[in-house]
């Protein structure tokens, strides 16, 4: 069981999915406060056609080019969602639902075509749906690691800019922060985080790595900085633990295990979290009830 950990390739894969989880946890924190968690899911699904088209054009599986294809496809999806919700009477949630399913359906259709070709059948493109970290070769790992570290760096150096951008964008604009620039940068880091994770975690479940850790982190703190760090830690933990669990079986997909670990952390946070966790809330309620009971008793004497 532990022997897989000693394999150096596995170590690299585990390390890279941890960094991916950290990046996703941080970006997820931003999506949480922009109230756009679901957008990341729509963009992840919208990335699939781009992956397959890049493969069909290139004829081989090179993660870097597949990622570029995925990013273009996801950005087209993002643009459609924005265009539909701004220029038509259709609301944003419907637009996201439509783009998500249409792009994904289109991607699956392309995948069927790609799988008919000899190279496609061998390529393991199906793995992009639920993800399989174990199929990553060293160059894939480097690509993912490099981009994930870049995302983390961008969040880190602009911490106070991100904070004011999320809390009060109009005031930030008054101070001279370019909202257009921040929106572009936000979309860029969001899409980057999504597409670098699709081989390891898969297009269907990568969004969970963005959505769940930030929701868990919310239960532990009242500070944006701490929330960002906690979300990064929980994302990293989900990434590495989920990947490790999936290597225990032959051909087990990575995505579902990553989600299960993230979900377990969320349930722990939901119950034991010190900020409005269910257990703490219950304790406070009990204490308050005791206090008012005590007051009633002593109050009777004081009168």
């Amino acid at each position, binding site marked *: 069981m532990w022997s897989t950990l000693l394999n150096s390739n596995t170590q690299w894969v585990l390390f890279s999915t941890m960094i991916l989880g950290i990046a996703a946890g941080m970006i997820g924190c931003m999506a949480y406060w922009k109230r756009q968690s679901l957008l990341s899911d729509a963009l992840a699904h919208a990335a699939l056609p781009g992956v397959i088209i890049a493969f069909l054009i290139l004829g081989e599986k090179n993660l870097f080019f597949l990622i570029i294809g995925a990013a273009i496809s996801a950005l087209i999806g993002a643009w459609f969602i924005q265009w539909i919700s701004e220029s038509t009477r259709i609301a944003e949630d419907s637009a996201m639902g439509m783009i998500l399913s249409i792009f994904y359906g289109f991607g699956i259709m392309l995948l069927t075509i790609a799988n008919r070709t000899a190279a496609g059948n061998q390529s393991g493109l199906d793995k992009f749906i639920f993800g399989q970290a174990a199929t990553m070769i060293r160059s894939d790992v480097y690509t993912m690691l490099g981009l994930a570290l870049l995302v983390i760096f961008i969040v880190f150096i*602009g911490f*106070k*800019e991100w904070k004011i951008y999320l*809390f*009060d964008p*109009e005031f930030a604009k*008054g101070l001279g*922060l370019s909202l257009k620039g921040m929106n572009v940068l936000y979309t860029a880091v969001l899409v980057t985080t999504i597409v670098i994770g699709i081989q390891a975690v898969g297009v269907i479940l990568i969004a969970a790595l963005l959505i769940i850790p930030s929701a868990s982190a*919310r239960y532990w703190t009242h500070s944006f900085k701490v*929330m960002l760090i906690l979300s990064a830690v929980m994302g990293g933990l989900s990434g590495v633990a989920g990947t490790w669990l999936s290597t225990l079986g032959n051909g087990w997909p990575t995505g579902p295990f990553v989600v299960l670990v993230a979900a377990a952390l969320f349930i722990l946070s939901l119950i034991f979290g010190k900020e409005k966790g269910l257990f703490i809330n219950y304790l406070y309620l009990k204490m308050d009830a005791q206090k008012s009971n005590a007051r009633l008793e002593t109050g009777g004497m004081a009168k």
Partner: protein
Amino acid sequence: MEDEVVLSVENLSASYRKNIVLHDIQFNVRGGTLIGIVGPNGAGKSTLIKTLLEMHPRLTGSVQFFGTSFKKAKKKIGYVPQRGSVDWDFPTNALDVVMMGLYGQIGWLKRPSRKHKRKACEALEKMGMEAYADRQISQLSGGQQQRVFLARALVQEADLYFMDEPLAGVDAQTERAIMQTLKELKTNGKTVLVVHHDLQTVEDYFDHVLLLNRTVIDYGPTARVFTKENISKTYGGQLRWMKEESRHVVHSVE
């Protein structure tokens, strides 16, 4: 700074969701004045401020701050948005929100220093909020949140301030604290434009009034402009004077 034109607006118009909400807006503001922007709901008061500060697109007209463009004068302009414009559940404390007013001075991508922190603390103290510096913003009352916003504007050390309903839904104590701060700003030669909705206090609070209902009904010193006739013109005759109190009441029925 005083008596100099700090803001000049010419022929401004703006629309909101395909409706023209502001048209032919024209006025000049001289330095060292405290101006109340008064008008009924939907008169375009917030839109006016947002259009001036380029947060909302303008259809026509020109706006000059200190004889130059908004972009060049940005550092001299402070803005207090409506309290409801942000999510108060955001995980941060009062001091941190005030610090945000200093981000322009700190410089982008740089970390705030101890000097900046002291400045933010002083601003909180001025608004009587020093005890709440570490308090979660979600745990502050509406009046306290408004004071934090005011403190954030104060640290900007601007010459011209725009405030969107800073007195809406605050307690009497906060209202006094805010008005005292505004008068202090005016005494120091600063100019403050305040969106205001309580007609009963206009005469006590502001030396100039801008009556607005889609366009400028009248603008000038309060004593001259804030007349019964002008007010009913602004509110479309929905205003009744209560004789016994000699105060006016606005009926919201359209």
